[in-house]
């Protein structure tokens, strides 16, 4: 077993997901099985191999810094939030 109960709770915290008690055990079992499957990559010799993070064939894509019409207006966007006031999104008190 490489994934412990503590690991699951830590990962849930990193992932900003509050897990009820009954979710912890099954996730531990699932994640353990999945992570163990990854160990087959140890068979591959990757010394000196460059990693590939993307296959986009391109690097930076530039454009002029010009204002363009956007199809969504402010009202559309604010309508998506639960609470807003004076064109601002309301959130619970942070401090």
């Amino acid at each position, binding site marked *: 077993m490489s994934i412990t109960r503590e690991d699951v709770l830590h990962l849930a915290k990193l992932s900003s997901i509050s897990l009820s008690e009954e979710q912890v055990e099954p996730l531990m079992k699932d994640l353990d099985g*999945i992570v163990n499957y990854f160990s087959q990559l140890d068979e591959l010799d*990757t010394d000196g191999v460059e990693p590939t993070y993307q296959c986009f*064939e391109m690097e930076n894509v530039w454009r002029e810094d010009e204002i363009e019409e956007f199809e969504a207006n402010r009202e559309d966007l604010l309508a998506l939030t639960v609470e807003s006031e004076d064109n601002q999104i309301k959130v619970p008190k942070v401090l």
Partner: protein
Amino acid sequence: MKIADKNTKAVDLVRDALDRAKKFEEYHCFISMNEARALERARAIDEKIAKGEKVGRLAGVPYALKDNYLSREGETTAAARMLEHFQSPITATAVKRLEDEGAIMIGRANLDAYAHGGSTENSYFGPTHNAHDMERVAGGSSGGSAAAVALGIVPFALGSDTGGSIRQPASFNGVYGIKPTFGTVSRYGVVAMASSTDCMGCFANNAEDANLVMSIMAGKDAKDSTTLDDFWTKELDEAKPAKKKIALIKDFMGDGVDEEVKSIVRNYADKLKAAGYEIDEIELPIAKYALAIYYIVQPAEVASNLSRYDGIRYGHRAAEFDDLEGLYNNTRDEGFMTENKRRIMIGNFVLSSGFYDAYYLKAQKARTLLIDGYNKALEKYDALLCPTAPNPAFKIGENTGDPLKMYLEDVMTVPANLTGMPAISVPAGKTKAGLPVGAQLIGARRSDQMLLNIAKSIEEQA
């Protein structure tokens, strides 16, 4: 496919599609319908035709839209509780391009929530049934789109393919499924999953229809900087393979692959041979590692992309919480399906300090070896051939208890995503029980049309 003209009314095409959607409602292909707007659009096209005005190449053609493409028409849910009532303020570029050519969206097709899954069973709204057997899955994640085409509701449908989500359901339902070269179709306005492998593509009944839809969607979009200059520009009959040589990947024809699937794919290879292709069998030992690489890379990108769902700006927000952190955590617990949580947590695991080198970096290095292996194989051949999935459609509920078993469904589809190569699933035959099986053709980047040309060359006999 039928396109509206003087003799064929767009309204009739759309009404027929809506009627069939109703008739096959129990298959649950759709999350929501777009009836009123679709008919309104159709009437506008008919008026144009009556006046002799120019209409598009897909005038009046009804289609199903996977519900992870944003459109201002109706709600975009991604089959997740998180977006259950999400009214998109924007429309995806791919959708705009199709609609500019007169295509008409009749409904939002079902999927695994956030496109995480291979069976459509992870949908918050319940699974889609296989078009050939109600007790079996439609595959996934684009299961609703595939079944809608297979049931004859619509002549084409859109899907997204991050690790096989177009090709596997295409195989399970007996239709064409196209995952193009990475960067072919703009991802602007599509719910992001894994940004280094997400590809937009389609389902259709034949190579020409698929080619037409893809040629309209393909091409550069300023709103997605990963898009390539349009290369989908030939007539399909002109996109001929140069070598007329195809290699069957032996590593995907061995243990763990259903016997009937193997024999149907061998039979497909024989048909290609009879049509004048030289068929070799090759070993590609790196191929079998693609799945482990994929299930490290993809969850890492998922964890990042899904961090935006915080209950603040849009989407579901938990009703109960103590503080801001509680709002985030409870919202994400309620809004995500278990499979979404697994992937986010796996992603955060492989990226976390202490494990990054052993998993994430190792996988990205292995990805380089995978790309080298496929590039090398494609130096000698026009295309590589293998099954699309190791088995025909499985029973609903059969794999839900074991996520790893579900992931193994993707073993033959993920290499094309990790390498950015185009791959298509072509209906190749049926099992004795009447379940469809797809053959998969993979080619070098930008060889998409050539793959369709190969498929077309033996279409009538398949």
